[in-house]
């Protein structure tokens, strides 16, 4: 099942990239359109039946998911500086066509840069007539040709790799404002580098690569496929094309040095240092895919609960692969050939130690700080906070408060239990109304509770907790007005709000009284932990 899931993902990446291409082909310049015109026809006829990897029924849903996921990385550049999550947001399928239009602009410059390797990949897989493209049986021959055009600029590579750390949203922005030569070079080298690696190694070792992020998962799929070298190359390349398109940051960091046909040999032979660079870059690439994973996982799970294996597999692949790499780094010079092939060449930055351990440490720290940034965006009120310790403090407080709220709410529900059965059907109907547009539920709540609760930590938690809940209550009252008043009893709409908000406070007191009346004290303190401020223990 896991294999199939990965193959699905693989096929879907292809399909998604091709779909994107097909949508783009209308607007793009002629040469690019020519190059791309071949893949346009692919998804319709040749790929699904001819593709050894695609699994029919589930590939569509996955293609949708991958579509939306690939779109996620091609946001409006203006939206790049939003929260880390925001830049990775994934649309529902309903909005897919619209976003494809959005993705057009972003994809354009990128396509221009990557189209040639892409074409090679597509053409290798499907020999369609195309006068612009040399159909080489051995793609290896193609790449040194293109490699010759790329100036060796390792500093650029590190810069490009560093860009990936700042999220693929920024990457999309970079693509939208073409940086001229450096940007396509990075993509070229990355694609070529992967191609190089795939060509140079037996297919079996491809499977064993500890490769960063999703690309590793894809390459594992490649290993499982028919072991024809050209097929592997094609698959790996399609893999890269897919990943190039849909995981922008991931590909960015999978940067081999320019002139990779030479450099990869160099690094391979240069022993520990080369491995360090490889691993460092790879570890860096691992950062951003996790965010993509978060987004995609959430999206996939909420959309179709049928792909949990796939998600789990992807995340496990990612975890396993990125987890292996630090160990390889510390293993240093004793690492064998196959593992290091999956790593990324990355130079140590100027003025920093090139010790394998310190490099790995640095990469690990950067990864962690990258994720802390996301947490910062998620946990309200952390924007002004700097430093890991304080950030962790805020996160811990937030998690604790959320857990306490869950306890409190469940206690509250327990007290109103006699009416529980009556309302379950009504609640099912109300679930449909949960999709209220806009910020009614989630963001105002955390943002309003944070300034209340956290700066003066122990004492104001109680009013801080109550006020945003009151504000949230107004919105459910809107919902209720629509659903409750009609079926249940006619009620003054104007007066509905007031009894409700009053009921909230009265109910709080009721809960407290009930708790104190019926249960032992420790239970009360645990259950209504948010109410008595004396019970608020906030670890510092």
């Amino acid at each position, binding site marked *: 099942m896991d294999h199939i899931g990965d193959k699905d993902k693989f096929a879907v990446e292809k399909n998604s990239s091709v779909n994107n291409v097909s949508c783009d082909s209308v607007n793009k310049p002629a040469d690019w359109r020519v190059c791309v015109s071949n893949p346009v026809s692919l998804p319709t006829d040749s790929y699904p039946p001819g593709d050894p990897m695609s699994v029919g029924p589930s590939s569509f849903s996955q293609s949708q998911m991958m579509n939306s996921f690939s779109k996620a990385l091609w*946001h409006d550049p203006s939206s790049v500086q*939003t929260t880390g999550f*925001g*830049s990775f*947001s994934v*649309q529902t399928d309903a909005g897919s066509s619209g976003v494809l239009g959005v993705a057009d602009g972003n994809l354009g410059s990128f396509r221009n840069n990557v189209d040639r390797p892409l074409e090679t990949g597509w053409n290798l897989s499907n020999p369609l007539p195309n006068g612009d493209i040399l159909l080489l049986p051995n793609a290896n021959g193609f790449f040194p040709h293109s490699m010759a055009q790329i100036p060796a600029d390792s500093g650029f590579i590190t810069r490009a790799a560093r860009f990936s750390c700042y999220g693929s949203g920024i990457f999309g922005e970079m693509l939208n404002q073409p940086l001229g030569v450096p940007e396509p070079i990075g993509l070229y080298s990355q694609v070529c580098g992967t191609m190089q690696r795939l060509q140079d190694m037996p297919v079996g070792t491809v499977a064993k690569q500890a490769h960063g992020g999703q690309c590793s998962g894809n390459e594992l799929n490649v290993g499982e496929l028919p072991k024809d070298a050209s097929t592997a190359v094609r698959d790996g390349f399609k893999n890269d094309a897919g990943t190039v398109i849909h995981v922008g940051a991931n590909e960015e960091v999978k940067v081999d040095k320019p002139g990779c046909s030479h450099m990869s040999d160099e690094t391979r032979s240069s022993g520990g240092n080369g491995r360090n660079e490889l691993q460092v870059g790879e570890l860096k690439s691992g950062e951003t895919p*996790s965010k993509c994973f*978060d987004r995609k996982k*959430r*999206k996939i*799970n909420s959309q179709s*609960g049928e792909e*949990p294996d796939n998600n*789990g597999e992807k*995340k496990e692949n990612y975890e*396993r692969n*990125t987890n292996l790499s630090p*160990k390889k780094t510390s293993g240093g010079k004793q690492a064998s050939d196959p593992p290091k092939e999956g790593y990324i060449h990355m130079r140590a930055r100027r003025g920093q130690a090139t010790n394998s351990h310190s490099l790995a440490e640095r990469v*690990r720290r950067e990864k*962690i700080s990258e*994720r*802390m940034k996301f947490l910062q965006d998620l946990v309200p009120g952390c924007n002004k906070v700097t430093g*890991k310790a304080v950030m*962790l403090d805020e996160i*811990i407080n*937030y*998690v604790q408060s*959320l*857990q306490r*709220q*869950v306890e409190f*709410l*469940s*206690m509250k*529900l327990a007290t*109103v239990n006699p*009416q*529980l059965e*009556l*309302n379950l059907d009504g*609640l*099912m109907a109300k*679930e449909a109304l*949960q*999709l209220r547009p806009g910020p009614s*539920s*989630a963001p105002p709540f955390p943002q309003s509770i944070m300034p209340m609760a956290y700066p003066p930590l122990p004492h104001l938690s109680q009013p801080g907790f109550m006020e945003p809940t009151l504000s*949230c209550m107004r*919105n*459910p009252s809107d*919902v*209720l007005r629509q659903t*409750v008043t009609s079926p*249940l009893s006619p*009620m003054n709409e104007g007066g509905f709000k007031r009894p*409700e908000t009053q*009921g909230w406070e009265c109910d709080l007191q009721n809960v407290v009284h009930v*708790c104190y009346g019926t*249960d032992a004290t420790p*239970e009360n303190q645990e259950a209504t932990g948010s109410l008595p401020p004396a019970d608020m223990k906030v670890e510092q």
Partner: protein
Amino acid sequence: MHNNDNLDMDRYNMVKQQFLKNWMRGLVACNPSLRVMSIKERKLTIKLSADIAMAATRSGATIWSRALLSRATVNTSQRLLVRRILRKYRYYPKNVIRRPSKNGSRLSKRVRKGRKMSKIRFLGQENALEKRTEMLKNLVPGGHLMDGKCLIEETLDYVVHLQAQVDAMRTITADFISCGHVNK
């Protein structure tokens, strides 16, 4: 920016909806027994069903969800609840229990490293960061299985789902209360 917020909200709402569905399923399942329970037990059951629902929306894709589910399935009385909620995903309890161990074997290096590190570190020489990491590990279900970077990822996911859970529970309880008032 506005576009992204809408997308985030849609996805967040979908998470919430999924959680609500799971939770309702669990509540319906344990409804008959709720009447005879004390308030304490009711609260525990409700909280348990909420936690399982939250983990079910993640359906085993993350460590924390698997840890939550396995924690719930240890108790046989709760296992039925898990089975009921998870029936859509066909993750029957033994699968759920098996998955953490499967994950554990894959994570064995990490777990071992983590445990070894914790043995070494807890000699009064922790810095502030280590203390907080330990606290976070205590908070997030399954936290002790994770190393630093994984911990933060899991925390991210867990926080989002907790937010969804709290929001959904709040609206539900609000509806209940208001319905109660209306009925009165």
